[in-house]
């Protein structure tokens, strides 16, 4: 797993990538003195195993005390974990998630970023009608709405 951090007095921006597993502990433990607001971009997180979930939740619980944590661009893997393990996000706000789609007509696969304000915040799902970039036919999500957004309902 790799982690990069851009710091400022009021906002820290973290970017996580790769595999979160038992080897993530030293990297996550090194994150200290987090700003009052911290965004964590998780677009490039490819995989999280059970050991990684424990390391991640321990990390989140440590840094969220007295701070606002916002998870951005959560990858489908992260969404899966949030749906499987309720405490995966702890108290963090979910700003946006990536969702996979396929075209029923030509088979083209696409990923689209959906954000909480427009599409899934507040307990309501407001899914966009998306058209295939290749053939303009309707895109179908890889996972049903209720299942994919269980974490937000």
């Amino acid at each position, binding site marked *: 797993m790799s982690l990069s951090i851009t710091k400022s007095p009021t906002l820290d921006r973290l970017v996580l990538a790769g595999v979160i597993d038992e080897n993530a502990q030293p990297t996550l433990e090194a994150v200290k003195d987090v700003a009052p607001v911290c965004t964590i971009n998780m677009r490039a997180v490819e995989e999280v195993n*059970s*050991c990684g*979930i*424990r390391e991640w939740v321990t990390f989140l619980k440590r840094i969220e005390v007295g701070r606002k944590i916002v998870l951005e661009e959560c990858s489908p893997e992260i969404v899966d974990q949030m749906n499987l393990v*309720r*405490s995966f996000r702890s108290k963090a706000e979910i700003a946006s998630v990536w969702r996979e789609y396929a075209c029923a007509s030509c088979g083209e696969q696409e990923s689209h970023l959906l954000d909480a304000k427009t599409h899934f915040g507040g307990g309501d799902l407001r899914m966009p009608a998306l058209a295939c970039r290749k053939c303009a036919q309707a895109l179908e999500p890889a996972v049903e709405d209720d299942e994919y957004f269980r974490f937000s309902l």
Partner: protein
Amino acid sequence: MRLKFWGARGSSPVPQSHARAVELVRGLVTRAREAGLTTLAELDEWVAADRFGKPLAYGGHTPCTEISHGDFSAFVDMGTGLREAGAAHMGKRKDYTFFMTHLHWDHLIGLNFFVPIFIPGHTLTIYHVHKTAPDSFRTLFNGVNFPIKWEALASKIEFRELKPYETFICGDVTATPFALDHPGGSFGYRFEAGGRSAAIGYDSEFKRISREALGRDLPFYQNLDLLVFDAQYDLEELLSKFDWGHASPTLGVDLAVREGIKALALIHHDPWASDQRLRDSLAATRRYAEKQVKRRGVAGQPPLHVFSCYDGLEVEMDALTAAGV
């Protein structure tokens, strides 16, 4: 090498109750009806042939695991399962060997009802790592906690302290204690015999689980046939029970897949877990294992065999199978 699990629950014995009996009978009747069975004879036939699968119930004894190979036999821990083990062995042998993981009560309280301890001519040899072990056992029999005093026990009892990583050798069987992660300290044992290996990995939270964190304990999980793993909590529960000293089945899968362990036995079940919950947990763990072997296993890595221990389960290491589980 053969393992027999005389007790598979952790922390506290789980007695049968009216509610549990009703749950069991209702479940069995439902399945029998679905199978079209109409007579008791048919039911007996199905049960005898394991057609409902094993176990019908996981049982409620606390940990006591028997390891045997040829003439060698030893027990790891003395949970309440030891009472039945004692009854099964009475009259067949006079010498008993024990290895203690630690001294929490759920791992000791079977000894008070282990009949051979009261009979002259029997010898109990207790291997332990904790220096205070003899005191703990004497406290069990101090005349207040139990009516019979230590001095009045008719059998011969010997304590043998083992240092961590010091190997016990008996014939072609070896047993080596290694460190686990549990409040007060706990030690697993790796047994080797007849070309097979089995490691006892309860009670442990496995907070040290990366190769780097395991350090000196890492080799005990490598080139291993069977890991008996602390599976007390599901992952969601575990995340709120930091420092409680127990682990979760899927952590065992992560460790087993990474180290190429062949089989994973889930044990030390939560006393609050119903039989159905344990069945569901096993199914979910097997799905996770299948996924993780595909994702993280090395090329050609065979599937990880995962099973859940129950009172009375016997595992023959040569086959590495557990009938009906």
